[in-house]
């Protein structure tokens, strides 16, 4: 082989359409005896070999993260630093997850008891992998979807078979995220921060915050949830906001139970969907958190919770096979991804990945493997108050520099939407001017947000959302989830802990449109 002296020797990854399954092999690749029952990534397995294979992958994804400090090559004892919370939605993945967790770590003894003398017996206190009583947690989302039925009891029946074991069932509701009473309960009475409560002005581009006294706080949590969701500018935001609320409800309940681990039933397929969906919504900075995350509650709110997805190496199809062969009842569809929300980015990503999985089965795992090799480019400078994930610095400067807003105005102008037709460019920029640069950081939500959450609250589209605001609610006075309120209140209170002041950490300088325009004037040469 001759050399071309080109030092930049590069390998070109090429996507060829691999054969799904040649259809010839009928014998299990593992035991070489049993007749094949299922094809997993081009290989045939029999039913007998399927179960240990799945369980092995499950353990491989989970066990290295169980001990607070990983003990290197071979594990000796599995001993978690806290208790266990398993998230359960009734779907394919979480049904398989709960079954795997129960069978692997809480096997039923002959007499039906898991441990003699009950788990609270001092003799057994130190025997399990996790401390205390493990919990199965379900978040009911029907509050966000009028007309949907409440499945709390139905789900309880589904997990019933495990409740004889040490599991405790904890039903939550989406609207709990707007309920100061709930917050107070899980925070062990912390309620001082609700003497004053913050409202968000969703009509203001700078996301202005105002204070309301708690006496004006007589709305039900459900109404506050509905107002928050319907004030969001897109279906994408509506859908993603719900995912965010579910995630944080689970995290906060985990923290309140001194859990060291929160397990999610995200399959390999769902993980790829989440990754593509997230990247399409600007979450690149926290892309590595999507597979494996260590969540630090705000200072003073307890120990970190590891969010683990033990099924992240197992496809949706294999999860479904597990459920089927184990005789587990699975709830059909993920409801909120259907109907009018099918144009949300989350739903588009799902359809896209499911479509690819049929034609290019390798893609799904490639996406997950690629993203596992990524890390945030810059160190984290703070935490976003809305999603409580690491936030990147300088997000607002970036947005200003590429004049993303002037595009949305320009495109709306072209499509005849949202932009007030009677105002010219100058008048529009005057409208937003007073609340700009001079505004103290604490009266705007913007500096406390990561890129994706800021986009969620501000980025518009022609389609908008279909849900109208509940009567009597104004888009200028939108309540925020209880933890946002608590974090912001803590950062506002004089003499508060310095570390709990995200406003100081993530603070950015908001640019006025005139300044922005002068910066990009060279690019706007169409004016002559």
């Amino acid at each position, binding site marked *: 082989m*001759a050399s071309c002296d080109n030092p930049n020797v*590069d390998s070109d990854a090429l996507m060829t*359409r691999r054969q799904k399954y040649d259809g010839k092999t009928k014998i299990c690749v593992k035991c070489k005896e049993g007749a094949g029952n299922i094809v997993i990534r081009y290989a045939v397995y029999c039913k007998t070999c399927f179960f240990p294979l799945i369980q092995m992958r499950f353990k491989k994804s989970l066990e290295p993260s169980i001990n607070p400090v990983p003990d290197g090559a071979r594990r000796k004892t599995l001993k978690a630093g806290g208790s266990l919370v398993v998230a359960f939605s009734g779907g394919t993945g979480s049904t398989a997850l709960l079954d795997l967790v129960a069978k692997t770590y809480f096997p039923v003894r002959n007499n039906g008891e898991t441990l003699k003398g009950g788990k609270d017996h001092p003799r057994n206190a130190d025997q399990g992998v996790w401390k205390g009583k493990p919990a199965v947690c379900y978040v009911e989302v029907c509050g966000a979807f009028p007309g949907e039925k409440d499945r709390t009891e139905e789900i309880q029946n589904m997990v019933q078979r495990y409740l004889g074991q040490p599991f405790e069932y904890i039903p939550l509701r989406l609207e709990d995220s707007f309920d100061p009473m709930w917050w107070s309960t899980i925070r062990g009475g912390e309620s001082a921060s609700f003497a004053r409560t913050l409202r968000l002005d969703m009509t203001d581009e700078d996301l202005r915050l105002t204070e309301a006294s708690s006496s004006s706080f007589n709305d039900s949590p459900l109404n506050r949830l509905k107002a928050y969701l319907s004030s969001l500018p897109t279906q994408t*935001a509506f859908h993603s906001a719900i995912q965010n609320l579910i995630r944080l409800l689970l995290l906060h309940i985990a923290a309140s139970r001194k859990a060291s681990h929160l397990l999610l039933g995200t399959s390999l397929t769902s993980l790829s969907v989440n990754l593509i969906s*997230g990247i399409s919504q600007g979450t690149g900075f926290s892309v590595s958190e999507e597979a494996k995350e260590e969540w630090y509650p705000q200072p003073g709110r307890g120990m970190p919770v590891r969010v683990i997805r033990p099924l992240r190496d197992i496809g949706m199809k294999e999860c479904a096979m597990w459920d089927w062969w184990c005789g587990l009842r699975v709830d059909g569809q993920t409801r909120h991804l259907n109907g009018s929300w099918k144009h949300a980015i989350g739903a588009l990503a799902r359809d896209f990945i499911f479509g690819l999985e049929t034609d290019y089965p390798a893609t799904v795992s490639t*996406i997950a493997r*690629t993203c596992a090799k990524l890390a945030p480019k810059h160190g984290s400078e703070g935490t976003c108050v809305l999603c409580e994930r690491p936030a990147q610095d300088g997000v607002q400067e970036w947005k200003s520099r590429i004049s*993303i807003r002037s595009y949305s105005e320009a495109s709306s102008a072209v499509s005849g939407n949202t932009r007030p037709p009677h105002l010219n460019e100058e008048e529009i920029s005057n409208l937003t001017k007073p609340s700009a640069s001079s505004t103290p950081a604490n009266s705007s939500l913007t500096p406390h947000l990561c890129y994706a959450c800021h986009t969620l609250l501000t980025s518009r589209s022609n389609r908008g959302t279909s849900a109208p605001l509940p009567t009597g609610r104004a888009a200028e006075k939108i309540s925020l989830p209880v933890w946002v309120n608590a974090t912001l209140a803590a950062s506002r209170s004089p003499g508060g802990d310095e570390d709990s002041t995200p406003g100081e950490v993530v603070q950015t300088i908001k640019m006025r449109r005139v300044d922005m325009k002068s910066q990009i004037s060279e690019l706007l*040469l169409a004016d002559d």
Partner: protein
Amino acid sequence: MQSELFDPGDRVAIGASGGKDSTVLAYVMKTLNERYQYGLELFLLSIDEGITGYRDDSLETVKRNQQQYDMPLKILSYDELYGWTMDAIVSQVGRKNNCTFCGVFRRQALDRGAAMLNVDHIVTGHNADDIAETVLMNIMRGDIARLGRCTAICTQGEDTVRRSKPFKYAYEKEIVMYAYFKKLDYFSTECIYSPDAYRGHARAFLKDLEAARPSAIIDIIHSGEAFEVKKEVKATQKVQRKYPPGASESNALCKACTLLEGLERGMADSGTTDRGRKRLDEAGPAPENIRTIPYFKLPSGSPAIAVETPS
């Protein structure tokens, strides 16, 4: 242009395809250069892949741009550089992997063309939609090396001329709008050999995303800029990249050369499949008489070749 891409007096080649992006880019570059006296010396550089009925019209557009904008034009053909037109390549490899050949050859042809023009810099018309699509494609194909650099506004390889994408943040729609208002004529044509189904899926998905929320394109680019390849992955990758199995650093071939060698020896799949590559390696060293691509030297002194100047 805020990224301080150019210095006064730079010689800059505009990669011109006759399509909307490069036509608008040529117009904008010329206008800005004159209005703000950047003092850039601008050239049009066009690649002729040798696809009958595909490039002919767009090359006419490029030639018209040469007249309108009063810029020197260099058209470099695959035939001239590699001895193979795309038509000839397709007749040998079929339509399955031809986009691989075309993409790799075009990239290198632009470098060679730039060397011939002795320019400091190549600018290409890649817009925000293209970059977002590339981010998605690289994630889907697991192309970590490209994923790391595809969002950079300016890149410079060890052996290549500086390349930039001034339209990185410009939506395709904006460019169309601009061309429309400025009454710029361009050619909108898809490569006739192109149906790259996989990329097609990604493109359609991107259009759906944009319809759902127009900022999605910029949001994807932001994502691409916010992450990087983990340090430990980068380290292992370098090793793998420089020493592929059975090759030491000194005899490793770049992609373009591998593809060309495969074509010349009638084993075109050597550049596109592992099996084909193995077959090529087993067939022993390349004969002396096959065509190879001359090694690129960083430009120095005056242009190596004469260019067509507008008459």
